[in-house]
């Protein structure tokens, strides 16, 4: 095992990896931007080095600065977390070139899987189902028509030159195909200077189900079952769980096999995630592979008992995987809610500032992975994810009520968070039934409105607060053992019993 590991990240995932360092007896090195001098991960490491600049482009994205810290500190390996440089093959190569172990896949695998066309080709060749469609960019209308003949309606047209919804169209009928392609090509040309398009089968209301995999440097690969991540908003996952409510042992076996095959044909190593789309008929299609530790990896840790970060360390150190597909199993159900510094009532607008009060949930079956503490100032420069709340229970039903209970205990003051949103989802009949897909937030949940029921208490509280402050009334110090309580107010009990 390594003596010293550098964690090239911030926030909750940096703390997650630093915890693994402590448990493995490995010295840890953290890096921090000017905005993170006082961040939790900066406090948690054995050694810390400033990167300067607050924006990520001047700090956490600077390969040169991080390599310099690695050399100065004598770190033998670097864990990139997720985001920032985690899926940057240049960074992985820089590590390789400098004799520092990159705790993640080799740079060639990152490159291959980061290329949507090349990775799809690789998967198709290996007979892993991919979404049917064009194999490469389409420049001619006629070529497009042929593809659609093959795959059938509805189809999705996307610009090949870039993303962001520009030139994107769903076509459901033959008669609309020609004009849709023409318009898409025109839009693509003006947006990206490239009129070519992709055409692929449009999946109605798919579910997003991914498989966690582990592969060592010696050709051994296993999967750690699935995670369902269909609660998404603008392709951002908000809630993840395992097992998926639609999974059967047979489907799990087939999808798991496909995931492991995807790992092997791309010569992948270390931890990774194979993402699939699953349609209403439970057909699954390879979507992409995330060549890093996922935000939602603890969901899998809870149902398998496997510490994925420690496994990453061991694989990177050249150890042979001690786990086999046969000696791992899944138990119970786990759910994760991403706690982000956003205001769900206000279209998930970012909400930064000082955490003035923080009470985290606890007790049976609750896990909190947090990157904040009371008094910390959430900076404006980075991802809004501040913590992850997870629960485990023997059954999905129990896990959901436990999550509701834990969300009720979670108190973060000073910033708005996604906690009320999660309470709403946990309470939604469709979610409780497991009957949801990636359209859940837009089509089922729609407007995010909270049922509030304590208007009366708010009224009383604000009046009492005003009296206490305006009149300079002071509460008498409670004396122990006093029989009568001057603040016990008389009144009928029947009233206002709604709580």
């Amino acid at each position, binding site marked *: 095992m390594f003596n010293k590991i550098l964690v090239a990240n911030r926030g909750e995932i940096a703390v997650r990896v630093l915890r693994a360092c402590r448990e493995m007896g490995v010295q840890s090195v953290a890096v921090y931007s000017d905005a993170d001098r006082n961040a939790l991960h900066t406090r948690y490491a054995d050694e810390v080095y400033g990167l300067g600049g607050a924006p990520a482009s001047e700090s956490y994205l600077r390969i040169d600065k991080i390599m310099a810290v690695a050399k100065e500190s004598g770190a033998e390996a670097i864990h990139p977390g997720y985001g920032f440089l985690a899926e940057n093959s240049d960074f992985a190569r820089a590590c390789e070139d400098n004799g520092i172990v990159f705790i993640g896949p080799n740079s060639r695998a990152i490159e291959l899987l980061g290329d949507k066309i090349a990775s799809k080709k690789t998967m198709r060749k290996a007979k892993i189902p991919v979404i049917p469609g064009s194999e490469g960019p389409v420049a001619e209308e006629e070529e497009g028509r042929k593809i659609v003949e093959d795959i059938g309606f509805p189809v999705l047209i996307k610009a090949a030159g870039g993303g962001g919804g520009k030139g994107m169209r769903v076509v459901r009928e033959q008669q609309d195909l020609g004009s849709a392609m023409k318009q898409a090509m025109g839009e693509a040309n003006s947006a990206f200077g490239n009129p070519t398009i992709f055409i692929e089968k449009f999946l109605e209301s798919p579910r997003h189900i991914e498989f966690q995999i582990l592969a060592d440097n010696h050709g051994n690969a296993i999967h750690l079952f699935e995670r369902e991540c269909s609660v998404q908003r603008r392709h951002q996952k908000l809630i993840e769980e395992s097992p998926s409510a639609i999974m059967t042992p047979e489907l799990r076996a087939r999808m798991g096999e496909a995931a492991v095959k995807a790992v092997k044909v791309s010569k992948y190593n270390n931890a990774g995630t194979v993402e699939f789309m699953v349609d209403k008929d439970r057909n699954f299609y390879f979507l992409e592979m995330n060549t890093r530790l996922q935000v939602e990896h603890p969901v899998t840790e809870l149902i398998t008992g496997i510490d994925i970060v420690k496994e990453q360390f061991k694989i990177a150190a050249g150890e042979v995987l001690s786990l086999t597909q046969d000696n791992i199993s899944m138990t119970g159900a786990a759910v994760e809610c991403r706690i982000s510094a*956003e205001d769900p009532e206000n279209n998930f607008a970012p909400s930064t*500032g000082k955490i003035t009060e923080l009470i985290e949930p606890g007790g049976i079956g609750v896990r909190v992975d947090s990157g904040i503490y009371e008094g910390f100032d959430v900076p404006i420069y980075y991802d809004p994810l501040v913590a992850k709340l997870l629960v485990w229970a023997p059954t999905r039903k129990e896990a959901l009520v436990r999550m509701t209970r834990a969300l009720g205990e979670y108190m973060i003051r000073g910033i708005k968070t996604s906690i009320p949103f999660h309470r709403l989802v946990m309470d939604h009949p469709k979610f409780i039934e497991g009957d949801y897909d990636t359209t859940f937030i837009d089509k089922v949940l729609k407007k995010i409105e909270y049922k509030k029921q*304590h208007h009366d208490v*708010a009224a009383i509280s604000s009046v009492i607060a005003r009296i206490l402050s305006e009149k300079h009334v002071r509460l008498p110090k409670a004396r122990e053992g006093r029989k009568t309580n001057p*603040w016990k*107010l008389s*009144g009928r009990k029947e*009233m*206002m019993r709604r709580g």
Partner: protein
Amino acid sequence: MAYIVNVEGREFKVDVQMKDGRFVVSLNGKKANVEIAHEQGAELMLIVNDKPFATIVESDSQVLVNGEAYAVEVVDELIEKLIKASPDLAQKKELAVKAVMPGLVIDVNVREGDVVKSGDGLLIIEAMKMQNEIKAARDGLLRKIFIKKGQTVNTGDTLLIIE
């Protein structure tokens, strides 16, 4: 003293009397059994009819009850009556639009002197890799703009004034 409290559109008449060293609370004419279990800073732990509520009076206009935020407006009953008698007094003359979070001003869509309508986009502020559009909360004349594109703003900074 009686107060009229508007809580997110619902109106409550709260009467709190000091009597023999106790508070006697009545809510919309009915007596309520209220106990203050704890008071510390903005925190006010109340037991209302045997049910505990952790309330936090964050400001004159916001109260948290068990973590849920309620927008409140408290007025003396007397003042309320005066306001109802002469509604002009109650109308605010100008609205200062303030930054609700720190961020970078990406774009300003309006100029001083513009007439804006409630809902019009005024400017865009970026934070946490996300852009956030600030919209006009009511109709009016844009009297003053304090910020410009490229500038960093802090929470509470006045951005512009609608008259």
